[in-house]
């Protein structure tokens, strides 16, 4: 049933793939965090962007990530956008989660009392200075847990990239399986890896949260 020798033998291959998975996760989340913040900020600073942005966000949230990955990778070239699988995958995941994150940031912005904007006007602070120094430092700490949840969710969706043959964990496990006709070890190990990493990141997020609470919520 379970062959320890085989498990040990495939471990290096899976470890290499795990690095790809982590890379996709971190880069994708970086895009999601920064683009999400930019979108949420744009809605506040330039009210005319609110309608196009919410349409785009709705479009992304209402279609499956898998389709978006395929679209970017296979349909992109007909629009002159040719990307390698890894780039297309990271971009698709990043865009997808940027849409979710922008809504989280928006809730954060809305939780800042209007009086903070008014005090900033009364002090003659510029709008961008107000956003950067006054609003964002208050808007983000309360939404860190929600953003953290999306980090874990994004991480767990990276196996979708196996559909465009990115050499991440799932793809490696599938290849090992089809070559050796043994699926028990590779699939179980991949599952275990996700379990451990998810728990570890949930723990890390709690630490960040606690740190932020100490610093900002007095």
């Amino acid at each position, binding site marked *: 049933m379970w062959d320890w020798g085989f498990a040990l033998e495939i471990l290096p291959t899976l470890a290499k793939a795990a690095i790809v998975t982590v890379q996709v996760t971190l880069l994708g989340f970086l895009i999601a965090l920064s683009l999400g913040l930019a979108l949420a900020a744009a809605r506040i600073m330039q009210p005319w962007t609110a309608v196009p942005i919410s349409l785009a966000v709705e479009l992304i949230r209402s279609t499956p990530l898998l389709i978006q990955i395929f679209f970017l990778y296979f349909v992109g070239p007909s629009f002159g956008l040719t990307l390698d699988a890894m780039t297309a995958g990271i971009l698709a995941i990043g865009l997808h989660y940027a849409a979710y994150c922008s809504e989280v940031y928006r809730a954060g912005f809305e939780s800042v*009392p209007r*009086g*903070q904007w008014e*005090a900033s006007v*009364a*002090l*003659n602070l*510029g709008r961008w200075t107000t956003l950067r*120094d006054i609003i964002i430092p208050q808007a983000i700490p309360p939404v860190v847990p929600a953003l953290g949840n999306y980090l874990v969710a994004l991480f767990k969706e990276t196996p979708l990239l196996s559909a465009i043959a990115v050499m991440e964990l799932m793809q490696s496990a599938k290849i090992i399986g089809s070559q050796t006709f043994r699926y028990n070890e590779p699939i179980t190990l991949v599952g275990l890896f996700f379990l451990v990493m998810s728990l570890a990141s949930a723990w890390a997020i709690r630490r960040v949260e606690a740190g932020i609470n100490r610093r900002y919520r*007095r």
Partner: protein
Amino acid sequence: MTEPMVSFENVTKRYGTLTVLDNLNLTIGRGEKVAIIGPSGSGKTTVLRMLMTLETIDGGVIRVEGEPLTHMERGGKLVPADQAHIRKVRAKIGMVFQSFNLFPHMTALQNCIEAPMKVLGLSREKAEARAMDLLDMVGMANRRDYYPSQLSGGQQQRVAIARALAMRPKVMLFDEVTSALDPELVGEVLQVIRKLGAEHDLTMLMVTHQMGFAKEFADRVCFFHSGRICEEGEPQAFFTNPQNERSRQFLRAVLEAG
């Protein structure tokens, strides 16, 4: 009177079909202390908020030292002002709010140096020196490193006053600054305002429910009712012998309450 510091000329403000201020004309001299009183919904806070550019105006002109606030002169005509113009005129005005509105993620000192550094371009040393002078004046120097949530309401409001003064405004607006305070904390804030009136040649415009303070402190009282100034005058005369029926009713009601 010399050139007025602030003047409202036929200023009208509407929210939908509700007219909050109806053709307001009000002129405030340099260094004058004006108390605005009246029942809630009479438009008195709106006067301050329009002057602070927190509300747009639907008609008329507000001038600060003769310069229109929401309009600017271009080719001999008044056109709606751009941001640069509004910021230039707004720099002369400071405001203290009912709910303090201190920045909760900054200490008392940081609250007081943020705008002087970012808007006036002061160095940190200069901004801190200025802030410490003011925190000292409001009796909060020993709380410089406290966060707002670690301060009482009265202390927060005193920091808010210092923060506004750090921008060296010529006009200070006080919007019901003691209304959110526990009764025993009202005195310390009024004490600071009193000091301000004596120490600075500052124009002050305050919306208040503290009739005793208005009577003692203000050079002039304006009684607002339904978006108009119903009666204005010297406090002594106004409080002892109001001429208008509505003023009399209001004062009677306020005195009975407390």
